[in-house]
């Protein structure tokens, strides 16, 4: 799902998921970062700005669902007006795609492992 921002209306759809990966641009930090995130009440004063942890918190409060969730942050280097990605951001995005593919594969393998009958 491609979105410009997180908002309340997405809760219903996330409630149907077992695992969610939030992919977003980062202003600072490593070129590519991935970490597991958990529900946390971190209220934002602006409706434009909603943290994924807060989003998961609302999901748990309202729909009693707690999917596994990861945040994949891709460092951006130029946020000035312009078109297209900077070469550095493009490189981050390409690395991020590979990490995302591996992450999905890993989660799927773990789920299959968990679903396999235990002897």
């Amino acid at each position: 799902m491609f979105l410009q921002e997180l908002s309340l209306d997405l809760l219903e759809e996330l409630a149907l998921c077992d695992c969610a990966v939030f992919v977003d641009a980062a202003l600072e930090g490593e070129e590519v970062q991935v970490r597991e995130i958990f529900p946390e009440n971190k209220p934002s004063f602006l409706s434009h700005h909603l943290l994924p942890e807060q989003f998961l918190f609302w999901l748990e409060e309202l729909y009693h669902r707690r999917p596994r969730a990861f945040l994949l942050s891709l460092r951006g280097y130029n946020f000035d007006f312009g078109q297209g990605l900077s070469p550095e951001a493009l490189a981050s995005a390409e690395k991020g795609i590979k990490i995302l593919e591996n992450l999905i594969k890993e989660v799927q393998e773990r789920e299959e492992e968990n679903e396999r009958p235990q002897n």
Partner: protein
Amino acid sequence: MGEKITINPVTRIEGHARVSIFLDDQGKVEKTYFHVDQYRGYEKFTEGRHFSEMPMITERICGICPISHHLASAKACDVIIGVEIPRPAKLLRELVHMGQIIQSHSMHFFELAGPDLLLGWDADPAVRNVVGLIQANPDIALKAVKLRKFGQRIIELTAGRRIHPTFAVPGGVNSALDEARRDEMLSFLEEGIPYIQEGIEIAKKWISQHKDECDQFASFPSGYMGLVKKDGSLELYDGIVRFMDKEGKIVREFEGRDYLKYIGEKVEDWSYLKFPFFKEFGPEEGFYRVGPLGRLNVADSISTPLAQKEFLEFKSLSGGKPQESSLYYHYARLIETLYAAERAMEILKDPDVLSLDVLHFGTPQNEEGIGVIEAPRGTLIHHYFVDTASGAMKKSNLIVATGHNNWAMCKAVDLVAKGFVDGKNLKEGMLNRVEGAIRCYDPCLSCSTHAVGKMPLIVEIYNQEGKLEKRIQRD
């Protein structure tokens, strides 16, 4: 002049603003200012772009009401190419607009204004938010989420995606609607209308329980402006601009393209947001309000049955005079949400809505194009100047809904600060009421100034010598 209190940023609004409250020696409020510190740049950096890109560029002004900019821009572009768009295209544009009204208005009532009304002005700020609302009334919260989703889903099913679609183009729209998507929308709108009605009942109950507060909170006379249909009923997509004076007299009706004859803009050195005024009354007396309260005040009726029933009840509260209290914006917003849902259903049942005749092609014929629409927060004007040979934008002027309400928001915070803030015994709930006065108008400061940024909440109190005495920060 004694102390100064700063509320920075104002919370639960779209965008960033700051309020300065100046106190006298006795701690009483002397004057309050509502500052918008963001810088507006869209009008400048669109210069040189091809005019047909404008619906896609200007919608980036906002993540909440991008559809308003998208459509006002497309309407201006229609004028540039000199075509009347096909009726099915007009229906589809209006449909996505109704989706946006539903999602924006419902989100504001439940997510931004709801905590104050349903949990109380003086409730602990730690719980006076969406989480507190969810915990206090999960059933209402679930319905609010659904309503927001229904509005966004209308946009997605009609225009391709929820935020920043590429749907409206000069001459019409670039995709038609099919039966499956139409039927899905009809189905969830049937489900959504009772939720909106439930919201209206909550608002009415709250008003009846807080009648004096509702009638007095940031209540003041002003002019009012909004689009109406030819018969004088509420209109949100296309219509004539009606201006009403503070007595409730309709003083002017004009086409949106003539806005410069009637609307001027004043500048103050303490805010980046300009102060529009009605030229016939001058810059000192010509201030007016737009948005849900302004629209219901200027309208004679509403064309859909359920909303019309609520409209009559709303009108009866002020005995036929304009409703002056800012808190009634919340009530008016819900009535408009009901209209938007009913109107969306009317459009979806229109046989033309499935037509493939959705676009008339054209090339630049006119150097100027003006598009006017009623955004959720009020009248939105896009005015473009184009080089017809190349199609390049030479200049643009955007008057955004929140800008029209700038004076009213300043007046509202001043009145509420004078009524509630006691500088010698300052409590958080007092400042929340000042913020609440602004929230009535649901301002979108990102729209009105188009800036980016992030801020914590800082309250600073200065003594008579201008020395900082107390500073409270909320990250």
